[in-house]
């Protein structure tokens, strides 16, 4: 069964239709890359999955559970939406770390707040918080940041910030981790270290959706590539199909510069 099914998603801002009937699905452990020019709707799609935008139309299902259905007006209040969005994690282009907290605190905060809602929180407080801290330290270690845990975001490089942000998203163990152009704010040197940890996550079969402009990376890491253009999915398939042998003229045009450089 598909871990994620997206059906007929539409979204209009003001008078501009940003998403026109988007449908795709993915399997557990897969990495999907979404490529396409700026303004094609990639980011809006990720924001819809994370409930930062509400689609005008369509259905979103995770593990067979319907999280969103525009036909069902009882879409749920804030409480429901909070629970549902925890199926997804989101790593932002601009990191959005909390500046007043250390790297470690950034990773722990959401878990600590969620733990407070546990019915037996008072009795097991110590144990719960210890487990959260242990997990956060492990994640930061995985990201190669063992010696940076006590640093504040402004003391870290862009690449390090983004790795903290990835650890922060992983801490809530989402079913699907989304990346919104995770390296677009980084210089080429720092891009490498962030792509490296994402590649490691892919090797560990983390289910991921990655919006990226790094074509070589998309080709190497993704199991499935989606090319979006003007609010629609114009072409999708394996990296070999979409990036190496695009069928559509528009895809060829978009990839022309990439192929020129790699030739």
């Amino acid at each position: 069964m598909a871990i994620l099914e997206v059906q007929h998603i539409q979204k209009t801002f003001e008078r501009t239709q940003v998403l026109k009937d988007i449908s795709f699905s993915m399997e557990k452990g897969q990495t999907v890359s979404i490529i396409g020019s700026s303004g094609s709707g990639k980011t809006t799609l990720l924001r819809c999955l994370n409930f930062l935008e509400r689609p005008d139309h369509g259905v979103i299902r995770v593990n067979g559970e319907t999280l969103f259905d525009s036909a069902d007006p009882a879409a749920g209040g804030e409480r429901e939406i909070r629970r549902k969005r925890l199926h997804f994690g989101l790593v932002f282009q601009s990191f959005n770390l909390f500046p007043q907290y250390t790297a470690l605190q950034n990773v722990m905060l959401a878990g600590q707040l969620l733990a407070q809602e546990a019915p037996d929180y008072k009795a097991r407080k110590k144990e719960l918080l210890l487990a959260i801290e242990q997990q956060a330290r492990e994640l930061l270690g995985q990201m190669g940041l063992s010696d940076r845990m006590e640093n504040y975001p402004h003391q870290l490089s862009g690449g390090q910030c983004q790795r903290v942000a990835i650890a922060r998203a992983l801490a809530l163990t989402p079913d699907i981790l989304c990346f919104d152009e995770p390296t677009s704010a980084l210089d080429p040197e720092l891009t490498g270290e962030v792509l490296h940890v994402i590649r490691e996550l892919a090797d560990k079969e983390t289910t991921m959706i990655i919006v990226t402009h790094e074509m070589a990376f998309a080709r190497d890491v993704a199991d499935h590539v989606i090319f979006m253009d003007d609010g629609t999915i114009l072409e999708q398939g394996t990296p070999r199909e979409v990036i190496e042998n695009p069928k559509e003229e528009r895809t060829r045009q978009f990839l022309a510069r990439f192929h020129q450089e790699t030739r």
Partner: protein
Amino acid sequence: MQLILEQFPIVIRSLNIGFLQTLKLFFVTLIGAFPLGLVIAFGSMSHFRPLRYFSRFLVWIIRGTPLMIQLLIFYYFPGLVLHTPIWGSGERGRFLAASISFILNYACYFSEIYRGGIQSIPVGQTEAGLVLGMTRRQIFFKIKLLQMVKRIVPPMSNEIITLVKDTSLSRIIALQEIIWAGQSFLKGSQGISGAIWPLFFTAVYYLIWNGLLTTLLGYLERRLDYFK
């Protein structure tokens, strides 16, 4: 010189009493204007249009007219025009009218500082909190509040220092603060008349008090320097 030495203890005692009234007005204004400013700030950001327009209109009026005129209107209007003297007579009534004028005036200035502080926090902070399953409440208290405080400390310090000196405007309704006390020796009080130096000497009080405040607010600013 001999004369000044003789006058000094008498003048200092009067100035101290006057300065106490100055300090009272200063603290009452802060205690009232901090929360009221926040209410007006939320009003001027409200999605409910009448409330937003009303808040912005109020801020426009209060910031657009001199505090001295506001003092005069608040103090004299109820009694002279409406024939209902609500302030009562004497120093108590004057202090009440001055407090209301100052609180309202400073609340409007503070509201704009708060609004700037709240709106300057990138929307990405809220979105990061939402995606991590936090409630709006948690996002405000755990993420945005401290960033907002850090941003508003410098402009707030400015307003607070200005307030110390603005309290002297209450002299216009004869509130017996330190300028009034200093001036009394010019007109004649406690056997001293025609002395201008007590009025000049009041500046020393303002300087010392503002020096203390500057140090305190600078310390607060440095305490929040650990993040950017």
